[in-house]
Every structure is written in structure tokens, then in C-alpha cells.
């Protein structure tokens, strides 16, 4: 029974409701991803969803595509192998913030450097949610985590800036509140050839929210509504008003030859 686009791609033999906490933004991002895939008109046998470990990495369990649930931080390494073995397949890599730039940080920068044709969706909840709320590389300075009880003194990673600097061809950021924009960016990334990164900010009511006084799911979404500003408006904002606010939108949209095309050309050129 197909009720709507999202239900069409769910694995009905899995236990629903899913394991994510009540009001977790991960579900919203997953449905945006499914709608974007549907809009792109991809056959479900031509799509692979690869993930690492973490809350976000439960996504492949629920979606009816070719899926791999790999080890922590290594989703991009597995996805690289998969892409080279099956160059025609659209490989979507779903990672959490800790998975992408913490444990798998090196894989991330090198996949971007090589311009592997992978569609990365980073579910950024600013914390290691599944393991109990340890500070992740993206926990903003001053915010609390179970390993930063008095506030995080480290500087945090900006995933979009990192992706931009390392050579991604498409970089965008949206939130679980701005669903329509999120769907649009994922859809755009699916049509690009090369390493694309869509950073989807999500609220974590259970760990990050509870420690930082935004524990209601609705409060988490209102926080996103108030603190994320479209890039055009952000650029006009004076420096002193940027404090605590974040830009969202499309940051990079360029064309570059990807690794797989070069690799296939190399094989073709060296055939006897």
C-alpha cells in the first residue's frame, strides 16, 4: 500500500515507528531525502544508501534501496569502493556530524579532494547523540555536552566551509525546520556530478537539547527558525549581529571533472 511518496520507499518489514526519539529531526531529513530521490526519478535499484554508525546512520535500515550500514566514520571509504565497482549507481552517503568530520574526518577531506561522485548528507545535531551526548567536533563553543559540562571551550568545525575548502562541487546547508529548502538542496545535489555535501542541521531534543535548554522538539525547531539566516541576508548582516546566528543556503555550485569519469577514461585509454 503506497500512501505517499515517503511511505513508498519505506521498508515495511521493519519495525515502525522508527527508533529515533520523539520529535527528532532525523526523520524529517530522511523524508526530505526520499522526496528528493522521487523527484529526481531514480529507480530504486540504481540508488545505494551508505551509512556509518550513529543515530543518523539508522537511515539505511528503513529505506528500500541498496543499503550498507558500515563501521564508524568509514561510510565514505565503503562508498568509494562501491562507486568504483558500480559507476552508474547513485551513491548517497548518510552520516552524522561525528561520523563525517570526527571519526571519519580524513575520509571526508580526501573524498572531497578526489572529487568522488558521492552525494553526502550530513545530519548535524551538534553532539554524539547515540552514545550519551559527548561533545562532537561541531558542538558550538560555549554549548554544553556531557563531556563539556561547563561549556565547550573548543572551536567548532563548520562542515560547509570544510567541504568548500577541500573541493566539493556542491555545498549547501539547511535545517529540519526549513524542509522545503532541504528537499530542494538534496534534489540539486543528486543532479550534480562530483562530491556534494548537504549539511542538514537537526535538533536533538534528548541530549543536546536537554543540556542546552532547548529540550522540547518544538523549541528546537523554533531555535532553527530564529538562528538560521539565508545566505543573501547573512552577507548583508553587520559583524556584531552575526553572533550566535548561522548562514544557510547554497554555498558552492561549480562544475569539476569527478574521479570516476577520469578513472573510466584512463581505463579506456590504456586498453590494448
Amino acid at each position, binding site marked *: 500500500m503506497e500512501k505517499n511518496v515517503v511511505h513508498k520507499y519505506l521498508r515495511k518489514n521493519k519495525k515502525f*515507528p522508527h527508533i529515533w*526519539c520523539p*520529535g527528532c529531526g532525523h526523520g*524529517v531529513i530522511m*523524508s526530505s531525502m526520499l522526496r528528493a530521490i522521487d523527484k529526481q526519478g531514480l529507480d530504486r535499484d540504481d540508488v545505494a544508501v551508505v551509512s556509518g554508525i550513529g543515530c543518523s546512520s539508522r537511515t539505511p535500515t528503513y529505506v528500500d534501496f541498496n543499503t550498507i550500514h558500515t563501521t564508524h566514520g568509514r561510510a565514505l571509504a565503503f562508498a568509494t569502493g562501491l562507486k568504483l565497482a558500480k559507476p552508474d549507481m547513485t551513491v548517497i552517503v548518510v552520516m552524522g556530524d561525528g561520523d563525517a568530520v570526527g571519526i571519519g574526518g580524513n575520509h571526508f577531506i580526501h573524498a572531497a579532494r578526489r572529487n568522488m561522485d558521492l552525494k553526502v548528507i550530513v545530519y548535524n545535531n551538534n553532539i554524539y547523540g547515540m552514545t550519551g551526548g559527548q561533545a562532537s567536533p561541531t558542538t558550538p563553543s560555549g554549548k554544553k555536552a556531557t563531556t563539556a559540562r561547563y561549556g565547550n571551550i573548543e572551536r567548532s568545525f563548520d562542515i560547509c566551509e570544510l567541504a568548500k575548502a577541500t573541493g566539493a562541487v556542491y555545498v549547501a546547508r539547511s535545517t*529540519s525546520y526549513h*524542509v522545503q529548502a532541504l528537499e530542494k538542496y538534496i534534489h540539486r545535489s543528486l543532479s550534480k556530478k562530483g562530491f556534494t555535501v548537504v549539511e542538514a542541521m537537526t535538533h536533538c531534543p534528548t541530549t543536546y537539547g536537554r543540556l542546552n535548554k532547548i529540550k*522540547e*522538539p518544538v523549541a528546537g525547531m523554533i531555535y532553527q527558525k530564529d538562528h538560521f539566516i539565508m545566505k543573501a541576508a547573512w552577507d548583508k548582516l553587520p559583524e556584531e549581529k552575526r553572533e550566535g546566528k548561522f548562514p544557510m543556503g547554497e554555498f558552492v555550485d561549480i562544475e569539476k571533472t569527478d574521479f570516476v569519469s577520469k578513472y573510466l577514461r584512463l581505463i579506456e585509454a590504456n586498453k590494448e
Partner: protein
Amino acid sequence: MDKKIEFYESWCKGCGICAAFCPKGAITMDKMAGKPVFDEEKCIACGLCELRCPDYAVIIKKKDKE
């Protein structure tokens, strides 16, 4: 325009996101049951609750007049 609201109660975790962001205030949370209650009269079938539902428990079906 006619519409049909389908709600899957067993999938709903009662987070209240649909009620909080409904532009017409057509959804209210039943405090006792912890589940949303839909007012079909007020609903304009914008589908924002369907888009933002993290549990895929709401489906708004639009039916054009014949």
C-alpha cells in the same frame, strides 16, 4: 478543494511539531492522549505537517473537485 487527512496513530510519538507549525491552527494537541487532533474545517491542505512530521504519521490527500 476537498481534502482527506490520514493520521496513523500508532506511528505518532506525540512530539507536537505538526500542531506548533500549522499556519491555520488546525491542529491541537490532546494533552491527555498526547496525540494531535485535526480540525478539517480549518485545514487548508498546505501539507506542512506532512513535510515536518518526523514519524511519517500524517498524510494530507488533496482531492480536486470533479
